[in-house]
Every structure is written in C-alpha cells, then in structure tokens.
C-alpha cells in the first residue's frame, strides 16, 4: 500500500494548503502499470487506451475526449467501460489510491463540458452498464443501470403504458445516469417535476470505491439525511452513479396543443394563471416565444407559420400543451378555456391556432423547438440558460438589448437580435444574443452583465444545463459564499483527493 500512503500524506499537506486557497497539486496520469491492474478485472474490450499494451491510435478516443459541439477537448489516454458496479468500484478505488482523476461519462450530450476531461483523467464510460434491473408495472417504478439510454428506457416502459418522467432532445444518446448526475430538465418538467422528486433511489460508487446502495423503490422514506439528493446534479463530482430507481408516470392517452398570440408580454402571467386554473392536471407545457424568436423560427423554416392576420400585433406567443387520460375530456376542457379567453371582456390574447391533427401538433411544437436551430442559422449565438422570476422575463431581454445598444453593439455589424424564449412553467428563460460573429467586445458587454442581472433577481445562471467546466467562474452569481464554502466542504468530505470529475462545478 505504498502508493496509498504516499497519496494520503500528500493530501494532508494539501488540505492545509487548500485552507489558504491554493490549488490542488496535479493529479497523476494513467500509466502502463495502471492498465495492467485494470486488466486484472476488466475484459480486454473494456479497456481503450493509447498506452501500451493496448496502443490504440489517439483518434479512437476522440468521441470520448470531445463534446458533441466540438467546444471542449480533453486529452485522456484511457477509457474504461466496466460492466458491473463491482468493476466500477475497483476502478475508483485504484484511482483514489493512485490519485488519478476520473471523468464519469454517459452519453456525452451535455452543453457545458461536464463530461469530457479537462486534462488526461481516466474516462469512465457507463455505456456497457445498460441493463434494466426491474420494472413494476403496478407502481411504475423502474430500476436500471446508469448506462441505459433514455430512449431505450422509454421504449421499455411503453408497452406497459408508462413513460419516462423526463424527455429531452438528446434522448436517443443520453443515458439515465447522466440525466440524474446533471439533474437534466427538459420538456416534461412542468408536468412531472424535477429528478429530485422522481428519482427514488440511487446506487453510487463513492470516490474511495465504497458502494453506497440506496437503490430503494420506496415512495416514502423519512429516515435521516436523504443522501441520494447530493448526487443528483453533482455532475459526477461526488461519486459515480451506477444504478437509478425512478418513478415512471402512466402514459397520457391524448395530447393537444395550441399557440396563442398575445398583444403584450404583460398578458403572459395573467394568462398562465388562467390556463393553470382551467386546465389544471392536463396542462403539460406552457412555453413562451417572443416575437423576434418567432420571426426567426419562421424565417428559417421551423414549422409552418401562422397567417399574417393571426400574427399581426402580437408581441409574443405562448404554446400550451395538454396531455391527459381521455381525449374528449381534454378537448372539452381546452375548448372551454379557449372560448373563455376569446370571449373575455378584455381578452388577454389576440387569437391563436389549435392543432387539428398530429401533423399540426408537431408543426406547432417545431415553431418553439426550432428556435434553437433557427438561431444557429441566423448567426453566432451567445446562449444563456437562466432562471429568473417570470415577471422579469421581458425586462431581462429588453434590458440586455438596451445595454448592447448603449455600447453601440446593436445592429447588423455586431448583435443582430436579442431574443427570449423558454419554459414559462419552470421560470426558465433562454436568453439568446445572435451576433454576426463572436467578438471580445460582445463577450465583455454580456459578461458579467447578464450574470449580474440574474444575480439581482436572485436567479440562476444555469437553469437546466448545469455548471460543468463552462460556468464554474459564474457560480458565485447564483450561490452565496457560504453556500459555495459548504459545497466545497462536502466535496472534500466525499472526495479528499479531488479525483472525481476535477475542474467541474467548483473551481
């Protein structure tokens, strides 16, 4: 245990250093010696490495070392693909003793660089842990390996008339373990709540290799600290999630959607109140798109536009989706709502359109979901995924636009559009600044301006995308010094050597 003692000795002196806010010493790189150890309990195909004796060409590891946007690049030499929790435990234990950094990786679909190494950490891919462990069609509780792909779980529970409580664009490649580790949001959050509620239990390999088995299937369990919550959204900095127990809701039998055109942003909140009250349990989405975002979506062919007459005088649009158990019931409720909205003395809406078929249903959604793609086609986007109070959505967008104007950056030469869209139901605004090109002037005008605005509203600088490597510097805009200090204490308690996903979440 020579290596262990050496490592421990260093970590003690380290802790003293850290008290003076100095950096952790560098972690060790993987060596052939380490590979030989891994080979003792992992099959040869589970070890991908550029080091001998495996000696793969470096490009074989590209898909693990880079994120899908090509924005973050690691230089790891070794990817391990364990098949069992026991193997994960062995790997982590060894890395802890040897002070080797570990990046747990799921589908690698994140937006903030949380799943790629910052240097040459070992990449621990969960892809081979992809078995469903159990499903109870009565309670709807699903227990699965962390590496199960979200879509395959959706397909697994579908014949039992259940759906996953989470749905997002990356569902075909993202893994449930990664979803949980990043506390992913997505399209069903308004209806089914966040993963903090739907995840019933976790199996986690702690940074010293211990297996923390909290894989319970209980809806109620008030027995002391709820440790699993710590790992939901920790982005792999406290341990490796290897198994997930999650509550799946019954599949809705009918869905409808409608786009409403509003004369003023001021009407969004009163409208949300009415819609929530009248639709109650069948309301499954309430999405907001401002006029500029709508125009961009239409310009770039995302979904079929409403007629000119319908969009005339609209300052923004709202997409309402319902899903419920009985079509007639839902349609009647929706029809009543729409009638009362149109016939109100002071109508909150100008007009709107109601999908008449699944094709139109998809087309209306495309107008909202297509904004992301339209923005990329229009120019170079600066994207901010923020949580702010609903009442300030427009203020934040307009304020940012005015701020850029005052800096002389608004116009075809620099920033073309400032747009807002997002999940009103979740208080989550996507603030996008579409520029002609990425420039330091725009960057400096936006940051820390946007973060300061968010902080002034006590909002969140990252509503659903996480912190990863991208936003560690901005964490303090959303979390107080006390909060961050305690987060660091928790991190040190679980992971004294700092091997788990180094450089992520906390600086």
């Amino acid at each position, binding site marked *: 245990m020579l290596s262990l003692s050496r490592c421990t000795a260093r970590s003690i002196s380290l802790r003293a250093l850290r008290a003076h806010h100095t950096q952790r010493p560098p972690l060790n790189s993987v060596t052939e010696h380490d590979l030989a150890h891994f080979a003792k309990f992992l099959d040869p195909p589970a070890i991908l490495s550029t080091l001998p004796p495996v000696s793969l060409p470096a490009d074989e590891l590209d898909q693990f070392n880079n994120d899908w946007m090509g924005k973050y690049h690691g230089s790891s030499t070794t990817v391990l693909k364990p098949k069992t929790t026991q193997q994960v435990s062995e790997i982590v234990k060894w890395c802890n003793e040897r002070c080797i950094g570990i990046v747990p990786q799921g589908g690698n679909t994140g937006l903030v660089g949380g799943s790629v190494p910052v240097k040459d950490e070992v990449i621990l891919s969960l892809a081979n842990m992809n078995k469903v462990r159990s499903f109870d069609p009565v309670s709807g509780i699903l227990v699965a390996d962390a590496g199960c792909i979200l879509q395959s779980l959706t397909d697994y529970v579908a014949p039992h008339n259940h759906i996953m409580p989470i749905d997002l664009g990356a569902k075909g490649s993202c893994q449930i373990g990664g979803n949980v580790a990043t506390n992913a949001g997505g399209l069903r959050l308004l209806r089914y709540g966040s993963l903090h509620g739907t995840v019933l239990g976790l199996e986690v390999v702690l940074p010293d290799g211990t297996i923390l088995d909290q894989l319970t299937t209980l809806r109620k369990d008030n027995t002391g600290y709820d440790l699993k919550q710590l790992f939901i959204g920790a982005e792999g900095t406290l341990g490796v999630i290897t198994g997930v127990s999650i509550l799946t809701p019954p599949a809705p039998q*009918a869905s409808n959607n409608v786009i409403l055109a509003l004369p003023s942003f001021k009407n969004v909140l009163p409208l949300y109140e009415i819609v929530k009250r009248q639709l109650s349990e069948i309301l499954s989405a309430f999405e907001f798109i401002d006029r500029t975002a709508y125009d961009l979506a239409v310009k770039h062919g995302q979904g079929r536009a*409403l007629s000119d007459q319908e969009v005339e005088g609209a300052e923004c649009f709202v997409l309402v989706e319902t899903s419920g158990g009985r079509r007639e019931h839902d349609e009647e409720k929706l029809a009543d709502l*729409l009638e009362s909205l*149109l016939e109100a003395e002071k109508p909150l809406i100008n*007009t709107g359109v109601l999908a*008449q078929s*699944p094709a139109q249903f*998809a087309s*209306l959604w495309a107008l909202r979901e297509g904004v992301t793609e339209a923005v990329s086609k229009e120019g170079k986007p600066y994207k901010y995924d923020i949580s702010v109070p609903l009442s300030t959505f427009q203020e934040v967008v307009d304020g940012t636009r005015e701020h850029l104007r005052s800096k002389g950056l608004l116009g075809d030469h620099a920033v073309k559009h400032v747009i807002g869209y997002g999940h009103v139901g979740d208080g989550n605004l996507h603030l996008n600044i579409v520029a002609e090109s990425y420039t330091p002037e725009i960057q400096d005008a936006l940051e820390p301006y946007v973060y300061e605005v968010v902080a002034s509203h006590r909002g969140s600088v990252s509503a659903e995308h996480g912190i990863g490597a991208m936003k560690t510097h901005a964490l303090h805009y959303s979390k107080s010094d006390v909060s961050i200090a305690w987060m660091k204490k928790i991190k040190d308690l679980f992971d004294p050597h700092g091997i788990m996903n180094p450089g992520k979440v906390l600086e």
Partner: protein
Amino acid sequence: MRPSPVRLLNILVPVKRAVDYAVKIRVNPQQTGFDLNVKHSMNPFDEIAVEEAIRIRERLKDAVKSIKAVTIGPPKALDTLRTALAMGADSSIHVEIPESAPSPEPLAVAKTLQEIIKRQKDGVDLVILGKQSIDDDLGMTGQMLAGLLGWPQATFASKVDIDVAKKEAVVTREIDGGGEEIRCRLPLIVTTDLRLNEPRYASLPNIMKAKKKPVEKFSPGDLGIDYTPRFETLKVAEPPQRVGGGKVQDVDELVAKLKEAGITAA
C-alpha cells in the same frame, strides 16, 4: 336593364375521417383489419381539398357562393366536418353510419355524392376531393363520381385556376416526369395531390364560429344508398420484417454467399 349576374360558384368538398398518418398502424390479431382505436384526423388529401376551396374563394371573392363539406362516417366524423368548417367551409353534410359499420367502398361513396349533388338546390359547379384516402389507398372515388355524373375530371391536381366567366378551369396535373396542363369546363371534379397547397391552421375564432355553422344530417336510408360491402377482406398482414445484413470475413465468403443467393457475374 341590369346585366345578368355571373353564375356564382358552388363548391362541394367531400372529406373523410381516417387514421392519422402519424399513427403506427397495428394489424389486429384476427388479421381482419387494423386497430382503429387510435388518433384519427382528416385525410390529408381532403385537407388539401378544403384548403384549395378556401383559396379559390380568397382569389375569386364573391364569385364563390358556397363551400360545403360532406362526409360519410360514424358520429365521430363530425369532428372532421368541424375542422373543415373551422378552416373556412360554410356548411356541411353528415351522412351518418353506425360506429361499427365497415368503411364504405368507393362506388357507394361516389353514388352518395351523386345523390347529394342532385339534391343541391343551387347545383354544384366544382367538387374538390382528395386523390385517395390514406387508410385504404383505393383512389377511385373522384373518377367514379365523374363517371356517374358524366362530368370532366382533373385528377392529381397541383394547380387549379378557375375562370368563372368562361365557366372553365385550367388544372395542372401531376404526371410521371412532370406536369400536364389541361383545360376543363365546369362542372368539374378535381382530385388533389400533395403539391397543390399547404393547409392552414384552424384559428381559434374560426373554431368557435365553426361550432355554430350548420350540419345537415342524413342516414344512408334517406339517400337510398346501400353500404353493404361488395369486397371481402380475406386477410390483412404486416409486411415481412426486414432482415438485417451480416458481416463476411473475406472476399471468398462474400463470393460464396452471392453465389448462394443466385447472383453471378454476367
């Protein structure tokens, strides 16, 4: 003396409630048909027909006197009529058949439409309907109706221009390798192809108005039509499962496999 008024156009649009095209079709275990307990909507080609009727009115303004939608179907087919009314049709006719009745065959549908056209006081100058329904894909109703009435037909239309004064229409048809432009006199049967137009959304005020628009109801007996099927469905089956490819070790094995499959060099 006032000039004699130009003959105003009355348009009839037959529409059908069909299983929505986005639904995955499942054959029932008895192999007699498919599961109908799924989302239905207006047959997409009929939706194009309704849209075209409305666009003709938008172009010709008051020269279009009426747009009437007609459907034959179970009580739920009323939803489909409401959609047509919400899009812009003025009134509608529902020939109601029992929920469990088999879908009427094209000849019976064409005869029904013939009867309905006969009963229209102001006559019908133009019938626009889908070239086929996506559930049975038979694609004959328009042609049969033209035959029964002895009217000209312009099938698979991708462009329709009506000249009310001359009482004629110029229609571009989709044919192999391009378009064919034909001139027809009214009254006329037009069947729609995909490229004719893109149907609009039904706006909320129009959906509300549609609830108050008239729906005239008939039973098959009222019209003297017999919907007893003339065809017998022997069996409905899913297409065979696609078999995935396999990997070969070397060229020799590939050649052997090709020979096995009866493929040889010419």
